[in-house]
């Protein structure tokens, strides 16, 4: 089959090397705006990729700190019981009873309380 091969070498474009080189250079020239655009895009993506790991590490640290702070705050809120005004003022038990019932103390109540304090 190879013996049947036609000699098509006169159609070989590289028999004119100068013309061929001009063609190659012409194609690369015509492609240069697209190549420049691609190089710029690749460079930008590369920069972002370089920043990716430090940025992720920083984000992880921030997340850790935020989580810890949040957990601590919640714990504080849950452990501390609510503080009422009467407790803060250290009001005695009989007086707290009058306040709770919303009534004025009678004379006997006052004698009882004062007597208790004197004792």
């Amino acid at each position, binding site marked *: 089959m190879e013996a049947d091969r036609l000699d098509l070498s006169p159609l070989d474009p590289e028999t004119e090397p100068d013309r061929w080189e001009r*063609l190659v250079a012409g*194609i690369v020239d015509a492609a240069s705006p697209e190549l420049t655009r691609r190089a710029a895009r690749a460079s930008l993506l590369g920069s972002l990729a370089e920043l990716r790991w430090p940025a992720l590490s920083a984000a992880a640290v921030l997340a850790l700190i935020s989580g810890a702070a949040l957990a601590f705050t919640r714990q504080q809120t849950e452990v501390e019981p609510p503080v009422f005004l009467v407790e803060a003022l250290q009001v005695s038990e009989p007086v707290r009873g009058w306040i709770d019932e919303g009534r004025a103390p009678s004379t006997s109540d006052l004698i009882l309380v004062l007597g208790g304090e004197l004792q």
Partner: protein
Amino acid sequence: MHEADHVLVERARAGDSEAFEGLVRRHLRAAHAVALSVLGEPSDAEDVCQDAFVSALEQLDTVQPEKFAPWLLRIVRNRAISVHRQHQVRRAMPLEWANGARGRDDPAADADRSALRDRLTKAMEPLSAKQREVLLLHDLEGWKHREIGELLGMKEGTVRYTLFEARRAVRARLGAESNKET
């Protein structure tokens, strides 16, 4: 260093000019043969190759890097067919394949080769575009039957037969011309 197509494609995607030039140098001959098989005129084939390579670069993200060559040659063929149609419309008549020698810087020095090229292109004129493509890829570019079949979507046996028919037709035309001359 001979880098595989897929490596060059990846580098060209990132705007590497050397890689793109590598792809051009590796595939330009086949692209030229495909364009020439459709258009018949070397300078038209060169224009089509330039457009096709630039277009391929613009669409480079869409191709699987391992399938670059057949993809590129499809772009070349489609462009060549499109240009052929434009020529037909412009000239309002069928484009004759093989319009003869192109302009040259030094016509005298290349006269013999030019005459041979004219004879060959005229002899290939009656072939179909597919026959010319098979003939040029095999006998000029040295492609194997299998490779041509993969590119053109033909069975290997069909490629062989197409090649056989094309060669026979060209030889008959060249023989007839020689008889006329003597």
